[in-house]
């Protein structure tokens, strides 16, 4: 990597100097100022033709060599400001001041990209929030979504898997899963690198995304990739390397404690203890580690940390006719296995974005991106997949069996896996993912035909391929057996199996074609501005896998948007989407969905215009309705709701065929056809305000949202008795309503004092969701009904501590229906008062999932030093500890976590141990934990060399940085040694990582 960097540097410098030599130059002077006219010192100014560079002095003044005869331009780039490119008038020796505009504010002239059009902020009636790609690069991760956590009000990122190369995250905005659009096309975000992202916008309401039609029914992450800035040639290289360590790993007891705890559990159950005093002594003394092993599984099979590497190289530039951006990106990470080969993951990404002016009327944009990901991993025993060591690490007690006896791999009947065998002799798998996203876009200026009319045509072709090959195998496995004379022998129970060849595990191809056509019309009539957009979008997504076939998903949407602004103060926008769904019967496929948006730029009113406190203030509201095309009704084939489906379904075996009957396939209705239904719908109301105050030092936005889902598709299975036969016989109808409402917002304060500048901000969302109309039986008692209740409630028993003694049990007079209870068992509240604890006592106890989500950020700079800090958290909610077997230890084949040392009667923290009773392992308030946490998500500390110094090294910018993610977390759950973000991390799968990297970035 370093060699590559060096080569590029040499190449870059070489070409620049070669060009410079041929051109006759002249020196011009100028000044760089900010929006308030304040001079900006230490800024690099570059000439396009001559490639000469200059640095502004304390007064912001510069003098730079430009081409004498050609129309040269200078480009000015400053962190936190939009790049400015200014033409130089030949023959003039002094330029007009270059005014730099800050990025990421709600300034009226800031650009908001919406489907089919880019608006200035003062025309937008929707709530759209923007994060620049620049901000995201400080997060060292192999997936982009992870970097968004805590940065956008209302956006919650759930990282589902952290297995290297298999990282997945899901983004939810205001509780709904988001769709990602990249350069105007709905696309998979997998493989997108933070470096290539220009900006990420969240479009929250239908005034912003109604034009997308049905595909915009869910929240949209609207991502644009970088483009070259004309007359600003940039080459930049970034490389970082670091280590990742688990944020937490569970703690399990050693074999002595395990044996002791299991004995206690058995005795509690009235059974014989499994280990004698002599056995326990041997576990303690470690005198016979073959028969009395004590394996620290986590310590033996995991390394403390694994490396992380990331590098990025990009070229951009161009002129009026052609501008280009190209990038090469690499991310590599590794697993934690310390035996055998670790999981290895390498991802490569290449992008080329070119913008060509074909003639005065036409421009062509071509975006080509390809990614290649290669993984190698220990193979899972069944099927092709990554071997999940954590599953064994967390379930095998320290005394399960020795790993080796006389060089033979040992397993036992109860614990049949030997991890050395799995990691060393059981083969491996390889996965290759190849992903290409291509699109071409033609923009035609039709001003000469119809004044103010432009048209855009865009076509995209994406492919996504994944192929997994693997091979299995095993070494011979032995069981330890003690012979008559007390000597140990190893008896072979599994024969060695060598697999010579790789076999195909999984292979799939996905193609996604999309095309859109838009006509954009813009006119100004006096104080009125009118913009009308007409868009047509069609898309096809087709998946091919080896074993099955998929119905392609298709979209066809027509949208009309009319945006009218009067006097720079009053804005009204109407969106009409005429959108089709292939899931509706022919003739009923298309429906019209309207959205109305209004905005008022209060700061342009006379009474605020000259107010020094208010720089910008906008109040906006929108209400819209959209259909939902992707209604998941379990058991139904969502494409053919209209058809009664008869299919092969089950077999039976009459007759005689060998030792069996003859298999005969059966037909059955798998879905009852239905007519007279409409697409389910969602109605979103958003009311918000945003602005900038006190000399643009404070920016803020607050939104109230209310989203109602109605006309949901249901087959009323829950309110239909079983006697009907089966839910598959029930036709679907429109039934069901729920509502989600809340508030989200952000505030940011920025300030500069001399060389010191800082910015401090916070964003938050509070959200509630409620069932309004639910498919549930009428006869259900009120406390069992969902309607009118919050959707995030946990339904369970109310626990009332642990029974302390036999007296309490008898005096309670209540039967708990999981067998006889003992002191140390959880006591439940008899909610319905029938003296029996059973299903009727399950109710909503008020506990619920988190409802408050927030992020805080801090950025501070002093001279070349810069610190950015991002924190993220959730609050006001609970987590069910019972969802982790770390807390819920029952049965005889489970490992005991160290938490179990605190069981009854030692403390009242956990119930008595048992191998039989189910009493304690019911979802109840006993197992509730506080889900709140605050996590230091991301920190970057950097130092940028003064421009004067870096320019001597032929660079416009040279920066070294240290970055970290997940450095610490505050949470009540920490005391359990689990990660509050995902309590099963490190137990059922890979842990969450803390990453620390060091890196360098240079620009030429």
């Amino acid at each position: 990597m370093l060699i590559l960097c060096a080569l590029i540097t040499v190449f870059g410098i070489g070409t620049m100097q070669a060009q410079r030599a041929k051109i006759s130059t002249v020196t011009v002077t100028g000044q760089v100022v900010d929006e308030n006219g304040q001079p900006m010192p230490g800024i690099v100014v570059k000439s396009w033709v001559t490639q000469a560079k200059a640095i502004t002095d304390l007064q912001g003044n510069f003098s730079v060599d430009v081409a004498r005869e050609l129309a040269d331009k200078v480009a000015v780039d400053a962190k936190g400001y939009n790049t400015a490119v200014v033409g130089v008038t030949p023959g003039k020796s002094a330029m007009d001041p270059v005014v730099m505009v800050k990025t990421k504010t709600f300034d009226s002239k800031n650009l908001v990209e919406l489907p089919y059009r880019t608006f200035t902020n003062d025309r937008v009636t929707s709530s759209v929030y923007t994060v620049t790609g620049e901000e995201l690069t400080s997060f060292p991760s192999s997936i982009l979504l992870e970097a968004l956590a805590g940065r956008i009000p209302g956006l919650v990122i759930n990282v589902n898997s952290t297995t290297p190369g298999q990282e997945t995250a899901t983004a939810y905005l205001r509780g709904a899963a988001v769709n990602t659009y990249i350069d105007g096309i709905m696309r998979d975000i997998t493989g997108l690198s933070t470096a290539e992202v220009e900006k990420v916008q969240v479009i929250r309401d239908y005034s912003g995304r109604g034009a997308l039609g049905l595909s915009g029914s869910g929240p949209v992450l609207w991502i644009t990739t970088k483009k070259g800035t004309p007359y600003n040639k940039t080459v930049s290289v970034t490389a970082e390397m670091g280590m990742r360590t688990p944020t937490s790993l569970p703690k399990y007891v050693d074999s002595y404690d395990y044996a002791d705890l299991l004995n206690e559990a058995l005795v509690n159950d009235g059974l014989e203890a499994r280990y004698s005093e002599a056995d326990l002594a041997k576990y303690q003394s470690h005198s016979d580690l073959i028969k009395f092993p004590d394996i620290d599984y986590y310590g033996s099979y995991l390394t403390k940390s694994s490396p992380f590497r990331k590098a990025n190289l990009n070229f951009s530039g161009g002129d009026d006719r052609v501008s280009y951006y190209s990038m090469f990106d690499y991310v590599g990470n590794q697993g934690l296995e310390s035996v055998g080969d670790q999981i290895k993951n390498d991802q490569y990404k290449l992008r080329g974005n070119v913008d060509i002016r074909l003639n005065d009327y036409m421009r062509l944009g071509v975006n080509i991106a390809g990614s290649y990901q290669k993984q190698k991993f220990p193979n899972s025993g069944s099927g092709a997949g990554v071997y999940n060591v954590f599953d064994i690490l967390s379930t095998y007690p320290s005394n399960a069996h020795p790993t080796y006896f006389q060089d033979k791999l040992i397993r036992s009947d109860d614990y049949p896996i030997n991890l050395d065998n799995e990691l060393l002799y059981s083969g491996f798998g390889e996965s290759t993912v190849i992903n290409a996203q291509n699109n071409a876009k033609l923009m035609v200026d039709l001003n000469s035909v119809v004044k103010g009319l432009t048209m855009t045509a865009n076509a995209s072709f994406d492919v996504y391929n994944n192929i997994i090959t693997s091979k299995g195998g095993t070494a011979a496995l032995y069981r330890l057996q003690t012979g008559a004379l007390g000597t140990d022998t190893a008896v072979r129970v599994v024969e060695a199996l060598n697999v010579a060849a790789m076999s195909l595990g999984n292979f799939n191809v996905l193609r996604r074609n999309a095309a859109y056509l838009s006509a954009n019309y813009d006119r100004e009539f006096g104080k009125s501005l009118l913009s009308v957009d007409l868009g047509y979008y069609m898309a096809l997504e087709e998946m091919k896998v080896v074993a099955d076939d998929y119905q392609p998903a298709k979209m066809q949407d027509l949208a009309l948007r009319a945006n009218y602004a009067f006097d720079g103060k009053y804005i009204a926008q109407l969106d009409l989407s005429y959108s089709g769904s292939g899931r509706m019967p022919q003739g009923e496929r298309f429906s019209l969905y309207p959205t109305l948006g209004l905005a008022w730029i209060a700061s342009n009113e006379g009474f605020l215009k000259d107010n020094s406190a208010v720089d910008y203030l906008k109040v906006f509201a929108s209400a819209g309705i959209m259909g939902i095309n992707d209604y998941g009704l379990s058991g139904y084939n969502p494409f053919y709701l209209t058809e009664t489906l008869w299919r092969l379904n089950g077999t039976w075996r009459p007759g005689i065929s060998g030792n069996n009957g003859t298999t005969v396939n059966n037909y059955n209705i798998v879905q009852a056809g239905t007519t007279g239904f409409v697409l389910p719908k969602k109605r979103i109301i958003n009311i918000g305000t945003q602005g900038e105050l006190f000399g643009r030092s404070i920016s803020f936005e607050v939104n109230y949202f209310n989203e109602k889902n109605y006309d949901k598709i249901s087959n009323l299975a829950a309110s239909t008795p079983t006697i009907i036969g089966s839910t598959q016989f029930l036709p679907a109808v429109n039934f069901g309503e729920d509502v989600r409402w809340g508030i989200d917002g952000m505030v940011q304060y920025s300030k500069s004092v001399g060389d010191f500048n800082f910015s401090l901000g916070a964003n938050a969302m509070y959200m509630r969701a409620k069932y309004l109309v639910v498919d549930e039986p009428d006869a259900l008692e009120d406390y069992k009904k969902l309607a009118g209740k919050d959707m995030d409630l946990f339904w369970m028993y109310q626990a009332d501590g642990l029974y302390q003694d036999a007296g309490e049990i008898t005096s309670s007079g209540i039967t708990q229906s999981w067998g006889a209870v003992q002191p140390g068992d959880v006591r439940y509240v008899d909610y319905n008062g029938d003296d029996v604890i059973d299903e009727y006592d399950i109710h909503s106890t008020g506990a619920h999932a988190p409802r408050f989500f927030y992020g805080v950020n801090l950025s501070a700079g002093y001279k070349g030093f810069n610190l950015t800090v991002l924190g993220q958290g959730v609050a006001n909610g609970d987590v069910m500890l019972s969802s982790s077997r770390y807390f819920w230890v029952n049965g005889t084949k489970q490992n005991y976590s160290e938490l179990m040392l605190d069981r009854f009667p030692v403390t009242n923290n956990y119930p008595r141990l048992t191998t039989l009773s189910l009493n304690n392992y019911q979802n109840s308030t006993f197992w509730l934990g506080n889900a709140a946490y605050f996590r230091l998500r991301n920190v970057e500390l950097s130092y940028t060399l003064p421009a004067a110094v870096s320019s001597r090294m032929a660079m416009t910018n040279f920066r070294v940085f240290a970055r970290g993610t997940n450095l610490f977390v505050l949470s009540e759950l920490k005391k359990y040694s689990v990660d509050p973000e995902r309590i099963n991390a490190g137990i059922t799968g890979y842990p969450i990582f803390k990453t620390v990297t060091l890196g360098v970035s240079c620009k030429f």
Partner: protein
Amino acid sequence: MKKILFLFIALAFLFQGCEEYLDKVQESTGMADEQVFTDYNNFRKFEDRMYKDMHDYLADYDYSFIAALCDEGYTESDWETMPIVQTGNWLKAYSTAQALQFSAPWAAWQSIRIANIVLQKLPMLEGNATQDQMDQIEGQALFMRAWYYYEFLKRQGGMPYLEVPLQGTDDFALPRLSYDETAQKIAADCEKAADLLPEAWDIANLGRPTKGAAMALKASTLLFNASPTNNTTNDQAKWTQAAQAAWDLIAFSESTGTYKLIPSKGTDQVTYLSPAGTQTITYPSGFDSIFMYTPYNDEIIWEFYGRVNASKYSTFTVASLSPGGIIQGFSPSQNIVDMFETDNGLRITDDSSYDPQNPYVNRDPRFYQTILFNRERWTSGTGIHMEFFNGGRDRASGAFKHYSYTGYLSRKFWAKNVDRWSNATPPPTHSIYFRYAEILLMYAEAANEIGGPGYTLPGATMTSVQALNKVRERSQMPPVAAAYLGSKEAFRERIKNERAIELYLEGKRFFDLSRWGDASKLVHKEIYGADFVADASQPTGYTISKTVQPVYTLVFEPRQYRWPIPLADAMMFKEFKQNPGW
């Protein structure tokens, strides 16, 4: 602006024309009603779907789970099902995914619907099938509807009797019929089915219900209906109805020769280790061939021969004998072992020649065919002898599951010389729903309830005790001793005993104990095993005693005679009542 609007409207119209773009691309494998119901083969493929639900809950291993809910034995299962159902928390069992014995029969409502759709759509087949074919389809649908109602009857009791498929707009709030009303509806369906169904099927269709199956189902239903739990007033008419239904089938069988008891042929032997050396016991062979080797044999009235029986190996064996894959180790109870008479035809407590320290000799031949005992050789292909003695390899202790808890294993469904050590192919075994011996026992039971052991139903040619003795005779057991024929009550106890050992592990006893009202008695709730303490002076080399404590004590309250209705259904309509106590 106008231009734009016009363009929009024009495009919208254009869309109506090109909305074919949204048509489906890949044809589904779905078929239309017409294709299914006007074609004989397709029609049958739909109808046959109604057999599947039954197979989902009546596989071989399910019988052992049902067995472990009564005194037939004990199982320690890896599945969470058994602890739940054994502790009587049957309501919970419905929401436990693995408790198929509970949730799967309830799911059979879908097969009732299929049967009703079949009956409703049958006219569509007219012209495309012969009258015989139509009759066969109708007969099977009526039979299977009756069968599933019979399964509900045995478990939850009376149900609304649906004879047409309910539509989404129908009133679902149907009241439950009484037990008797439901039983009579089942009997009526069986009568109609018996008229339509063939006496036997050709080879390819073996396994479908026959006329005899319909008659057996009717007899069994009516026997349940007459039994004490469901006939609290001891209405004699119900017993007469039951006896008549059983006799009808016996008479039909005797006149046509359709069903026979498989006779004993030749001898078989078991060997076991004792201080005096290897002992051999010879006994009449043949009983085992009802269950293995020959499917659809003369004794079987209705069975399922579709199940690959490898699962039986992991069900009835123990971990020490079959490494890996053990679902449970089923342990027959001492309660059952003690019910096997001596070969003099006497209860062990009544036979002075019986030595409790030498209990394996001179027993009912079915003992050797049913029970694997301590030190018995484990299949002839290996030198392995069972170690059920205390501390033995095959005996459960402490938390070691999947070993014998009682000192016995089941041999009933084990073919000779087959086990996982020898890697031999599992033999054909099958799940039997009705066999001829049970019909004889049904007649014996009902006739005894009417007039005692010597009673002959008018029109019949057999007394109660004669019918029972036929079953004993097949196993070369002497007739019931005169000492047991003194009263209806004394003989009733022997009928119960005969059913227990003849039909052991065939999924019958649990329901028998329920209908007799016996299951909630302590004697049937406490499941005992035997202790074997080494003592070379004893004939077997062990001092044998019944375990001091029960191996397991089932929770069985009177409410358990009627299984709970799953909560979701019980809470849906007031008319559809939950059973008392749940």
